[in-house]
């Protein structure tokens, strides 16, 4: 009787744990927040590591998701365009795709270098929204045209620029098998970059103007001397 009871208990324990929570995939980043401040002549490198708490190898995409890189351009209150700064003009991530071994914490976790090095000239994109009346004609030539076009342009980095967003590590494949749900984690990034001060830029402009005026005057005076 006792043996039967013990057997029943063992069987119950076995079946009750049959559907117990098995471990799936996971991901992590070694820091939850990054704050970087500096100016155009600075060069800082910091490293974040991509962690893997699971027993499976994972492949992850690493990217920066910018919150305030895009600003609206409005004319009489109507949005006509958007300007987007390419964050890579301020800082870069050295990797965008990583394989992370199982149980990777600390030194075993692969590093991603975040290099802060603001450039004198920043890359930007201007997205111009065209009115529907014009879109009709453009679609005659290009059927896939939606309602905007993008022009890349470069500009001097004047003043201060704050960039906020997330460095995201997102799992897209794993030795676990087919993934129905993809986990990701985000590290908050706040970058304050100082470009050339506006006053310095104005002085530079004045100097350039003076030099040009001087050169023009010299050329003119030489011309007069020759004519005499």
């Amino acid at each position, binding site marked *: 009787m006792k043996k039967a009871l013990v057997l029943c208990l063992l069987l119950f324990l076995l079946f009750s744990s049959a559907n117990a*929570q098995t471990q799936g995939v996971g991901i992590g980043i070694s820091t939850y927040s990054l704050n970087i401040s500096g100016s155009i002549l600075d060069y800082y490198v910091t490293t974040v590591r991509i962690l893997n708490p699971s027993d499976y190898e994972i492949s992850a995409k690493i990217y920066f998701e910018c919150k305030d890189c895009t600003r609206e351009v409005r004319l009489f209150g109507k949005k006509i365009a958007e300007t987007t700064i390419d964050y890579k003009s301020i800082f870069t991530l050295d990797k965008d795709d990583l394989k992370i071994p199982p149980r990777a914490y600390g030194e075993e976790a692969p590093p991603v270098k975040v290099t802060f090095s603001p450039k004198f000239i920043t890359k930007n994109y201007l997205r111009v929204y065209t009115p529907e009346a014009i879109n009709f004609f453009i679609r005659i030539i290009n059927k896939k045209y939606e309602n905007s076009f993008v022009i890349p342009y470069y500009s001097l980095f004047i003043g201060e620029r704050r960039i906020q967003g997330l460095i995201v590590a997102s799992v897209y494949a794993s030795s676990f098998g087919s993934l129905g749900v993809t986990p990701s984690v985000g590290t908050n990034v706040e970058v304050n970059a100082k470009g050339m001060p506006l006053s310095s830029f104005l002085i530079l402009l004045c100097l350039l103007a003076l030099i040009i005026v001087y050169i023009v005057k010299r050329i003119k005076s030489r011309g007069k001397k020759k004519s005499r």
Partner: protein
Amino acid sequence: MDEKYLLLAISSLFFILIAVTTISLGQQEYRSIMNASIQQPICIQLSGNYSEGVFFTNTTTIGVQYPITNMLVLNNATGNYYGPSYGTTYSIQACSGNTINIKVAHCACENLKCSSGDCAIGVDQLYVSYEADGGVGWANGTTATFNIHAPPDTSYYFPDTDVYQIIAGNVSPGDSVFMRYWIDPRPNNAPSGVYNTTFNIRAVEIAQNIGTCSC
């Protein structure tokens, strides 16, 4: 003669400089380094069933996927009651190595689109957001056997596609969030077939913005 004096003056100045430097360095005899290495990780781990995906079945089956036949009621996800004591097998754990509390959000990349069957592939769809005739809903709890068996209200349905919705606002290190999902298929006259979408989970520190869902 003048050159000699000049050379003497320069060499004297040089030696005075060396002496002053040596004295000042001598005063900073105990120079040491201050160094700190800080690691405040953010990390999550999904349960096995959750990693596989959320598969909807009918109202009565547990653990196995069967076609949904009743379009007017909430139909279970296979893992809703598949754990011990009819607990859910969908969970997200904040790693015990975390030093901060996290918030967790989920996002459906698209409505469930027809992938095979009698429905028009890529055209027919089941909406995830709530309307009077249904949607995809969820409920959360702190234990696997939490006592909620339907979405508590309309805010526990996906708000739309490509939008992160917070499913747990404050998860301490080592703690888990347990989830259950239901589908009340919308529209009710959706043609027979298999409908799929992809699904994301994201975690950030509680004070941070969850970001945008880009699939």
